[in-house]
């Protein structure tokens, strides 16, 4: 479970350039496809940011070809749980995370990083995976850090949810002897 540090997007010239073309979360999310509304009132994220996070989570878990017993990211409410967790973090961490979501969604960033100008939420699933892969394998530490922040939070919230335990062969916590 890891969220980005402040200054995450400010390292070096390239970081600055990405921040410029990222253009701030509000601008970046104007064309975001919203998907299903949040289950609970959001504590940190705006609706568009939640939608980006939910779209990422849907590609991260449980993955294509999963047997039906594997719950979806939406069923586990990964995005809602991440919102609740980040609401507890230092305010600057929350701001950085919002900026990261904006950058990930942004078409111009996509064009720059893997030559696709379409916002993440509007991409086909295979192209969404390609964008995640581009960040994961990037030569830029900045993008690899961003990938880790997004994916670890999804994994942390998904795999710590009891409804996922059965498919892992994990019976859950044992009874406490008295």
């Amino acid at each position, binding site marked *: 479970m890891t969220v980005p540090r402040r200054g995450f997007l400010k390292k070096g010239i390239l970081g600055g350039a990405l921040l410029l073309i990222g253009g701030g979360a509000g601008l970046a999310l104007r064309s975001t496809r919203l998907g299903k509304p949040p289950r609970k009132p959001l504590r940190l994220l705006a609706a568009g940011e939640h939608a980006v996070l939910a779209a990422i989570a849907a590609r991260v*878990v449980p993955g294509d070809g999963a047997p039906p017993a594997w719950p979806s990211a939406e069923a586990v409410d990964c995005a809602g749980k991440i919102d609740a967790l980040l609401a507890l973090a230092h305010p600057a961490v929350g701001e950085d995370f919002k900026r990261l979501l904006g950058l990930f969604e942004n078409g111009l960033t996509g064009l720059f990083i893997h030559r696709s100008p379409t916002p993440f939420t509007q991409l086909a699933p295979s192209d969404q995976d390609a964008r995640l892969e581009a960040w994961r394998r990037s030569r830029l530490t900045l993008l690899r850090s961003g990938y880790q922040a997004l994916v670890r939070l999804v994994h942390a919230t998904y795999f710590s949810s009891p409804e*996922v335990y059965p498919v892992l062969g994990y019976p859950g916590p044992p009874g406490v002897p008295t």
Partner: protein
Amino acid sequence: MSGRLLGPNDARGELTPDFCVVGSGAGGSMAAAVLAQAGARVLLLEEGGHHTRREFNMEESWAYPTLYQEHGNRATEDLSIMILQGRAVGGGTTVNWTSSFRTPPATLERWASHHGVELDGAALAPHFAAVEERLNIKEGNPDDVNRNNQKLWDGARKLGWKPELIRRSVKGCARLGYCGMGCPLDAKQSALITYVPDAIAAGADLLPDCRVARLEGGARVSAVHGELLDASRDRPTGQALVVRPRRGVVLAAGAINTPALLLRSKLGLGSGLVGRRTFLHPTVPIMALFEEPVEAFYGAPQSVSCHHFSDRGAKIGYFLETPPVHPMLAAIAFPGFGATHRRFAERLAHTQSTIALLVDGHHDDPGGLVRVDGTGRTKVTYPFGPDLQEAGVDAIKSMARVLLAAGAVEVVTLHEEPLVIKKEGDLAQIDRAPFGPLRHTLFSAHQMGGCPMGRDPKRSVVDSRGRHHEVENLWITDGSVFPTGLGVNPQLSIYGHARLFAQAIAKSG
């Protein structure tokens, strides 16, 4: 007269204890207990909450956000090393895996010869013995060994690498496997149920949910300024705390937060060393799959260690242990996403995990850096140089060998592009795979350094009894005083040093 667990109403106005102790883990609880038993009036402050066994529900979704620093999200600035560090009454001891080692003689000798530390094994021995007595640390127990640890034992034995049973700080352990989430039986003899209650019984007051923002002073600390926290939101309630201790301040906020507090306070920084030489025992995990279920989520999490590679001469050493394999902790260690990641996860019950902890600071590796940014946030960076990379790669090969020897069907590395090792001949792949920050999963469960002890004020922050060289009524009793990584799990070293230091503070403060 017994002390009390304080709440916000007890923290109004200026408080004037003899000593203010910041942090209630191994170092702080011990200092509070020793000072209170010596007759001093002690106020013990803790940023985390006071959580007890009935809350310890063995669910990762509760435990990590509630009991760990930054809600389980602490990491180096580039996110390459995930840092597991406790934040609750009892500090790291509330969530550690109970492993108990005295400071190795070779480490103490190095501190004396290279860092001007005026302490030796003989001076520390009675303190270790007293802690072992209080925490019920006995010889390692073969009955503690679960299947996960048995694999490390079997493999290391076959290779002649002399595995050892780990001594554990437990009494009446049911081997549930959830030490890292708080012991629901109070079988773990954490500070939460030992030295913190000892301190309170001797008259110390404990105030949890209180963050110390800064120390005020120059040649002496005149005040400790804190803010009370609303635990449900982890935000300040708006109520400030001012403590004006009559005799002194003891810092024990851990090896990241203690240097950060000095930096934030701009106090006692003359050596230029505060926050430098931060050591993490950078930890390299590996996974192995076995035909039969391993169920590494159950049983005492850590009962076997292997120190065969601790001393590699001119190269950085490492030692081998095991982590528990619970769903979340494992899932954030597995690389990839989607179906690739799922293939790791669906074999969880058959997964063994071993870890290699790199013994940092004993060579030319400089350690990490703790600093505080303009918003007051604490940052950790940790350069992972070629010498550490060499050790990491060698450790992966050793772990693969040990697990193949133990009968693994396949060993899977946690490189971003995982390698599958099925036989000795596959090991050469490990040398070719990109290794390093964000190329391989790395974490830290041991934080040390940042305020090193020693004789020379130009080369250390505190003396060899924990007293700050520049600030006369300020002491440090946590792992930040260690001049290098320890080479073993730190809790007993911290307790032992803190006990020795606190007895000196009681006399001189």
